[in-house]
């Protein structure tokens, strides 16, 4: 009698745990890439985006040259709004804000500096700076937009 009761209790507990984990699936960055990504970020990205990914001062407004400064990559920024494909393209091929006053790239191109796996590692590190909600949103975006047609069109020119 007691055994049956404990058995039912264990089965019930396991069911609840499995349902709970299904319902609140978290997006966890790939740990194997995290350390490598952090190191690459400090070497290549921190000079503009800050050692703590806090972005340049007054990043929300054009600088004295009339160009947009480097934004933060944490939860206060907007990196989390972009799909993996978009982030890979931006890091690899760079990007220029069309309203910059100079012809300089807003984001320089790193395709000659970073291998694809290194780019992936940096993106993995950036994901660790976001909230869970932001990671989930970004995951949805990545699934919905495996390739960004507008950006592809722009960068293919």
């Amino acid at each position, binding site marked *: 009698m007691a055994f049956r009761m404990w058995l039912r209790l264990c089965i019930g507990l396991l069911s609840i745990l499995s349902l709970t984990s299904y319902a609140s699936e978290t997006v966890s960055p790939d740990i194997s890439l995290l350390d490598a990504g952090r190191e690459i970020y400090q070497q290549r990205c921190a000079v503009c985006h800050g050692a703590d990914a806090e972005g340049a001062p007054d990043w*929300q*407004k054009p600088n004295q040259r009339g160009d947009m400064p480097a*934004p933060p990559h944490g939860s206060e920024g*907007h990196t989390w*709004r*972009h799909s993996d494909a*978009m982030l890979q393209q*931006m890091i690899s091929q760079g*990007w220029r*804000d*069309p*309203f910059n006053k100079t012809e300089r790239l807003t984001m320089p191109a790193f395709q000659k500096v970073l291998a694809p796996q290194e780019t992936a590692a940096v993106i993995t590190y950036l994901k660790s700076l976001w909230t869970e909600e932001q990671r989930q949103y970004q995951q949805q975006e990545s699934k*919905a937009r495996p390739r*960004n*047609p*507008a*950006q592809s*069109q*722009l960068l293919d020119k």
Partner: protein
Amino acid sequence: MKLVQFRKLLRGYKAVNLLISILFLYSSSVVSAADLADGKVVSLSHNPASSDLIVAYPQALYQLDTQTQQRVSVALPATVERITAVVAQAGNPGVIYLAAPGAGVLRSTDGGKNWEPRNEGLPGKAVTGLIGHANQPDTLYAVISDAGIFRSENAGGDWQLMDGGPENMTDIMVHSDMPGSMQTGWVFAATRTGVARSMDCFCLWREAGALVGEITGLTYNPKQPAHIYAATVEGVFRSQDGGENWALVEGSPPEVTALFVTISGQLYAGTRSGELFKKAHQTKRWQQFDGF
């Protein structure tokens, strides 16, 4: 003698009665802006397949044939107390979306004969603004005051909160597929102090140029997506560089409350008094349209 006089009197009475009836019927059939509640043109849209201009007033909706200038009233469901925006879906003549506080987002797939709510995922039905994506027919953006801007990518099937919107935002927006975005285009939003602009990833709102004052109408030219039109108390302004610089469009009608540019590049304006105007190509002249 008296009988003759009575008959004359009776004939005269009948004639006057007939005249009054004719005048009554005539005045009933003419719908003027003054007859409509508020009389303000709230929103304009256009169906490229049928060439109809969709004209929304606070309590009335019309499909206006731009060739014949004949208008057909579109029956509204009882849940609609006040229209705040109308969107005709590009490429599908029968599909119209309405925003109406209290009813939320409504969609018709048969030109307005029947309507269904499309509010799943919205925090309420106080939808005060609604626009369509420039080239993705099933993507819509809705504004709920005090809640923010919501996006649907499945024709209103469900909605997701994207952003709180720029500071001092009103409910008027437009989506442009102007190049240079990190995503698929740009959202321009009317504020009480000018025009705000963001890529449609909603990464960052920035001021679009130095246009000052409350924006009462906003649209873009699908043929030239960097051309944005904005209405202020001073008139209609046009930017040719995505909102960086603005110039007054000469001869603008007064008190513009709605703007729209069709895929052929024809600019329409609706006013607070319910009038409609179109801007003649290559001239400075604005032509009053539809006789109001």
